C-alpha cells in the first residue's frame, strides 16, 4: 500500500525537535563545547548559556532561576521530588503521601517503592470523568502527610486537574505540593507562585526539545536531599557536568511553548473537537475523560469489540501514528491503569485509542485521520468474535 500521507498523532508520547531548538543547540556541540565549570572564555560562555536557559525555563512557569534544577527528564524529576521530600520529612514523623490512582508510573511506582520504607500512600479516586476533587485532597491530608503529588494533566486521557485549588489547600495545611506538569507545559498556563506549587516536574521532549532533558522546580525554602553527589553543578544538588546543548534547547523550547499559549490552544482545540465529534459518531464508541477539562490536543476514545494494538498497526499502515492503553501495547497483562481508574472494564479499555495532536497538526491531517479510522474500525470489528457477540446483545459494556 502506498503511503500518501503520514500523520503524527502521538505528540503526548514525544515530539520532534523544532528547527529553532535545533539551531540554538548546534553551536554547543562543536564550537561552544566548553565545560560551564571552567574558568576560561569557552567555559564562561557555556556557563552563560546554561544560565540563560535556566532563566527561560523559570520565566515559563513563573519561578526564579535559582529554583530550577535541570534533570535528565520528567521521570527523574518526579523521582527526586517525591523521594527527596519523603526523605527530608520522614525523620520528622511525616510518613504519608496523597496522590491519585492515575498518576504517571514515574510517580505511582515511586510511591509503591516507598511502602517498604514505611511510607503510606493514599491513592485518590478520580471518578468517571478523570478529575480529582480538591475536597477529596483536603479530606485525605493527615497530621503525618509529607507530600501531595498530583499531575497537572493526565498523559493518557488529557484531563486537567484543579491544581490551583489543590495548591491552596496544601499551603493552608502546611503540606508540600508537587505536580508532574510534563503534559501541561506549553498547553496550559503555569504559574507556580499563583498556584502555590512547591515542586514541579517538566520534560523537554514533549515540547520540541530533545529527549533526555527536563527540570525540577523546587520552591526556594523547600529543602530536599541532593540527588547526585559530586561537583557543584545545579547548586550542588545534582552533580555532573551539564548537558549544555540539551539545556540550551530546553530553554528555547520552554520559551516558545509558553508563548501564545491561548492562540495555539484554540487552534488545536478546534481540531480536537472535530476529531471527538466525528469519531464518537461511530457506534459503541465513547470518549474517555472529561470533554471540557481536557488538554487542547488530547483525544482518547474506546471502540467496543476491537483491540488497541491491532488498531494501531492498522492505522500505521494507513499513515497514522497513535497510541493505545491496551494490555498488548503496555507490555503487561492489564490494560492501562488510567482507563481502569475511570471505571472502564478491561474489555473496553483494550479497545482504546489516544490521538494527541498539537498546533503543528493541520486540518488536512484531521481529514486523513477521519478518512482512514472508521474503515479500519469496521474492518477489525468485522473479524472480531467479540463484536459479533456485542451486536447480538450477548455482551454489554
Amino acid at each position, binding site marked *: 500500500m502506498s503511503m500518501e500521507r503520514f500523520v503524527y498523532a502521538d505528540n503526548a508520547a514525544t515530539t520532534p525537535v523544532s528547527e529553532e531548538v535545533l539551531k540554538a543547540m548546534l553551536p554547543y556541540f562543536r564550537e561552544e563545547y566548553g565545560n560551564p565549570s571552567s574558568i576560561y572564555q569557552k567555559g564562561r560562555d557555556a556557563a552563560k548559556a546554561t544560565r540563560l536557559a535556566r532563566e527561560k525555563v523559570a520565566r515559563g512557569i513563573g519561578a526564579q532561576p535559582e529554583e530550577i534544577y535541570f534533570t535528565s527528564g520528567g521521570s527523574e524529576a518526579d523521582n527526586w521530588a517525591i523521594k527527596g521530600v519523603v526523605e527530608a520529612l520522614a525523620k520528622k514523623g511525616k510518613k504519608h503521601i496523597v496522590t491519585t490512582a492515575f498518576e504517571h508510573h514515574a510517580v505511582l511506582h515511586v510511591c509503591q517503592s516507598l511502602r517498604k520504607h514505611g511510607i503510606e500512600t493514599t491513592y485518590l479516586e478520580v471518578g468517571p470523568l478523570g478529575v480529582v476533587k480538591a475536597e477529596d485532597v483536603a479530606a485525605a491530608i493527615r497530621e503525618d502527610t509529607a507530600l501531595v503529588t498530583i499531575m497537572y494533566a493526565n498523559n493518557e486521557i488529557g484531563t486537567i486537574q484543579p491544581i490551583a485549588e489543590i495548591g491552596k489547600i496544601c499551603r493552608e495545611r502546611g503540606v508540600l505540593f508537587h505536580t508532574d506538569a510534563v503534559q501541561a507545559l506549553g498547553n496550559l498556563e503555569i504559574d507556580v507562585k499563583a498556584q502555590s506549587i512547591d515542586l514541579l516536574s517538566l520534560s523537554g521532549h514533549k515540547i520540541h526539545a530533545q529527549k533526555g532533558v527536563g527540570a525540577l522546580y523546587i520552591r526556594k525554602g523547600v529543602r530536599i536531599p541532593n540527588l547526585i553527589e559530586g561537583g557543584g553543578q545545579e547548586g550542588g544538588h545534582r552533580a555532573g557536568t551539564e548537558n549544555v546543548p540539551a539545556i540550551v534547547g530546553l530553554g528555547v523550547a520552554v520559551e516558545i511553548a509558553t508563548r501564545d499559549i491561548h492562540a495555539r490552544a484554540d487552534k488545536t482545540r478546534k481540531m480536537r473537537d472535530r476529531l471527538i465529534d466525528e469519531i464518537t459518531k461511530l457506534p459503541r464508541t465513547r470518549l474517555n475523560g472529561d470533554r471540557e477539562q481536557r488538554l487542547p490536543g488530547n483525544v482518547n476514545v474506546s471502540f467496543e469489540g476491537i483491540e488497541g494494538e491491532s488498531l494501531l498497526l492498522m492505522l500505521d499502515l494507513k499513515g497514522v501514528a497513535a497510541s493505545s492503553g491496551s*494490555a498488548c501495547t503496555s507490555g503487561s497483562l*492489564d490494560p492501562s491503569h488510567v482507563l481502569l481508574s475511570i471505571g472502564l472494564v478491561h474489555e473496553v479499555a*483494550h479497545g482504546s485509542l489516544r490521538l494527541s495532536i498539537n498546533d503543528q497538526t493541520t486540518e488536512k491531517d484531521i481529514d486523513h485521520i477521519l478518512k482512514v479510522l472508521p474503515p479500519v474500525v469496521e474492518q477489525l470489528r468485522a473479524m*472480531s468474535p*467479540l463484536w459479533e457477540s456485542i451486536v447480538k446483545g450477548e455482551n454489554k459494556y
Partner: protein
Amino acid sequence: MEYSDKVLDHFSNPRNVGELTDADGIGEVGSPACGDIMKMYIKVEGGKIADVKFKTFGCGAAIATSSMATELIKGQSLEEALKLTNKAVVEALEGLPPVKIHCSVLAEQAIKAAISDYYTRLGVDPLPIVGPIKDTHCHAHFH
C-alpha cells in the same frame, strides 16, 4: 514491538477470515477481558479439513497467528492438524516477540477446540483424541 515481515503480511492481509455457516466444528478460546478471543470454524470432508475460517479479537500477533494457523491446517487430515504446535506457527511466521508467544498457543488451542467440537457433534468423546484444551494465559482481574 518488532514484528517480522511475515507477521505484518498476515496481519494486514489475513487469510481465511470469516465464518463458515455450515461448519462441522467451531472452537473458541480466550476471553474478552484478556484482550484476545479466537474463533475457528472447520469444514471436514473425508477426514480432512476441507475449509477453515477464523474470527479474532486481539492484537496484531493474534490476528497473524490465526491467519497462519488456518493456512497451515487447510487441506490437512485431522490427525495432522492436531499435531500442529504453536512452535510451528511461530516458525512459519519467522518468529514472534517473546510477549506474543501466547498468541501462537491460543491459535493451536483454537484448532484443537474446533476439532474437539467436531468430534462432540459426531457423538465421539474428543478427550482421548484431542486432549484437554488449555486454559488461556490471561490472569487479569475480572470485573
